[in-house]
């Protein structure tokens, strides 16, 4: 594919596409989130929304995507697509994109999506914005977003021209110190990888799932295209913590250093009382106190639970980037100048080893009194 696809961006009128990642026949949750978000973008563009699903014997899981808003799904079923490979997936996606010409393509920013997205964008000669946290087509909506989520002067926001069909892809940069909105004006599809857990999943609609159209593109893939060979796929033996799906996250930070096991145990007890799970700041993962699946923040997971409790976390901007949209943030820290208090709804300045047990008892009592 040596020719640039920029010659005629108007030809890319094949709708909004979402790469729907599945692993071992199970759809990744981010696929439903992105279909739900893609529906809004397709409506703003006045176009259709399609999923593109790759794998082997995966047709059975395609229609569910319709229940979250997909008009149709391109089902690419082939024995060589059974496991994810960069080579196989890139070839099939790029061939299908060049045949059906979508205007926008969204990919979940998982370890696989972040491998696949850049390779496809490089082959298609188009722009890709990584790890987006907000997407817009409609300019008035984008302006409203800026009014709520930026410190830009109102005049600067009002001055943005309203005639614009570009996908506006907003992402954190420099560890969350800056936000940037990126556009891809000269090439199509405009591509974005989107952080898992950021976009909200729509209500499932069975009638829409039943009506979802399945399309089977021609697949020209042979052994010769495969330069990497998957020897085995191993699931982690330990059950991983589901931070993104949790309603309550109780996270610990460097503040537990004087008694790591004791601190984690208190967090577990508080989490159990609130019906949640335990997370951690980068320091706790780097120190080996918690495994990487617990990490909240810019390089970990983005969460927005109903309750987020930060125990002994100072609140570096990288951490805040992963949790500041939580509904209710409770922070316990010894230092009253800890940055976490700048975003906490409720702050207690004190020793987490003393405060947490009392908080557990108080919550037990409050629940019993209800």
């Amino acid at each position, binding site marked *: 594919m040596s020719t640039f696809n920029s010659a005629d961006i108007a030809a890319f009128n094949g709708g909004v596409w979402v790469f729907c990642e599945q692993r071992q026949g199970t759809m990744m949750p981010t696929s439903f989130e992105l279909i739900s978000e893609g529906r809004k973008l397709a409506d703003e563009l006045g176009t259709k929304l399609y999923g593109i699903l790759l794998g082997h014997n995966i047709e059975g899981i395609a229609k569910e995507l319709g229940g979250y808003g997909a008009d149709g799904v391109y089902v690419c079923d082939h024995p060589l697509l059974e496991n994810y490979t960069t080579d196989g997936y890139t070839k099939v996606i790029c061939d299908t994109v060049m045949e059906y010409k979508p205007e926008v393509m969204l990919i979940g920013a998982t370890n696989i999506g972040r*491998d696949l997205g*850049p390779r496809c964008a490089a082959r298609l000669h188009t722009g890709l914005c990584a790890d987006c946290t907000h997407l817009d087509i409609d300019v008035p909506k984008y302006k409203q977003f800026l009014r709520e989520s930026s410190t*830009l002067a109102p005049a600067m926001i009002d001055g943005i021209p309203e005639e614009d069909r570009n996908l506006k892809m907003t992402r954190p940069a420099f560890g969350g110190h800056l936000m*940037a909105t990126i*556009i891809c004006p000269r090439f199509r599809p405009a591509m974005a990888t989107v952080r898992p857990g950021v976009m909200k999943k729509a209500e499932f609609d069975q009638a829409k799932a039943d009506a979802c159209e399945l399309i089977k593109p021609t697949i020209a893939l042979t052994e010769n295209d495969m330069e990497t060979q998957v*020897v085995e796929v*191993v699931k982690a033996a330990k059950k991983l913590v589901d931070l993104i799906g949790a309603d309550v996250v109780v996270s610990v930070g460097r503040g537990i250093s004087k008694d790591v096991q004791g601190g984690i145990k208190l967090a577990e007890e508080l989490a159990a009382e609130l019906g949640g799970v335990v997370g951690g700041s980068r320091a706790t993962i780097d120190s080996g106190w918690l495994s990487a699946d617990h990490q909240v923040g810019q390089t970990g997971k983005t969460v927005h639970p109903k309750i987020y409790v930060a125990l002994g976390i100072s609140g*570096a901007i990288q951490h805040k980037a992963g949790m500041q949209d939580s509904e209710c943030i409770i922070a316990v820290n010894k230092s009253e100048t800890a940055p976490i208090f*700048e975003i906490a709804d409720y702050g207690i300045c004190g020793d987490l080893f003393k405060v947490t047990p009392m908080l557990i008892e*108080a919550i037990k009592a409050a629940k019993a009194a209800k």
Partner: protein
Amino acid sequence: MKIIVCVKQVPDTSGKVAVNPDGTLNRASMATITNPDDLNAVEAALTLKEQTGAEVVVVSMGPPPAEGMLREVIARGADRAVLVSAREFGGSDTYATSQILAAAINKIGVGEEDIVMCGRQAIDGDTAQVGPQIAEKLGLPQVSYAAEITKEGRTLTIKRMLEDGYMTIKVNTPCLITCIKELNAPRYMSVGGIFECYEKPYEVFDYNTLKDDPLIDSTTIGLKGSPTNIFKSFTPPQKGAGMMLEGADKDTCDKLAGILAAKHLI
């Protein structure tokens, strides 16, 4: 055998970050470091060098002061360094950057037994895009998120991390690998290395060095050749500080639990 390692000098975003009034980063006021994941790529290359006697060539795109970082990587054990630097390359997004670095790597030369290594992502942009995009531009197979690498002949066996486990992947040289911190613990500069780092070969590739490569075209490099543009950049507002509760005793905790109950959060 040769291992080409791509490294980037980045502002240290783990400390205090200064932002200009116009919403851009005040780079001048910030310390620079070698991107952390890139040091894992350097270490992986040096480990393979010890096993195979491979030559380790380190390459970076950036302004002239990045020479200091490249000398440091030589002091860790690399054999030579290349800085890719030209006004024409400025303003490149990940696509354009990968075009330029791929051209530089072509100039260094990728043979049948050679490996290109990158860090997974740089802490200034966190995109993780340049490694895979270089691989595409060079027509090399890629394996990203490498946590273990073993080599037998021309075949590499790589443990590639997923969020919920890992894959074991076999790939032959030449190939490109992106490395994560679980792969190894980067070594420090050695005293001997520091003494020698100004003796070892150091080259600068400018626009003229690379301009004959078909990848280098005014429509595909620099600000004008970048498919993506910055539409707006801004600082997020601080979420309004909430309520600091008085004290840190049983009454404080009871009060908080009462608020949570009143708000139906528990």
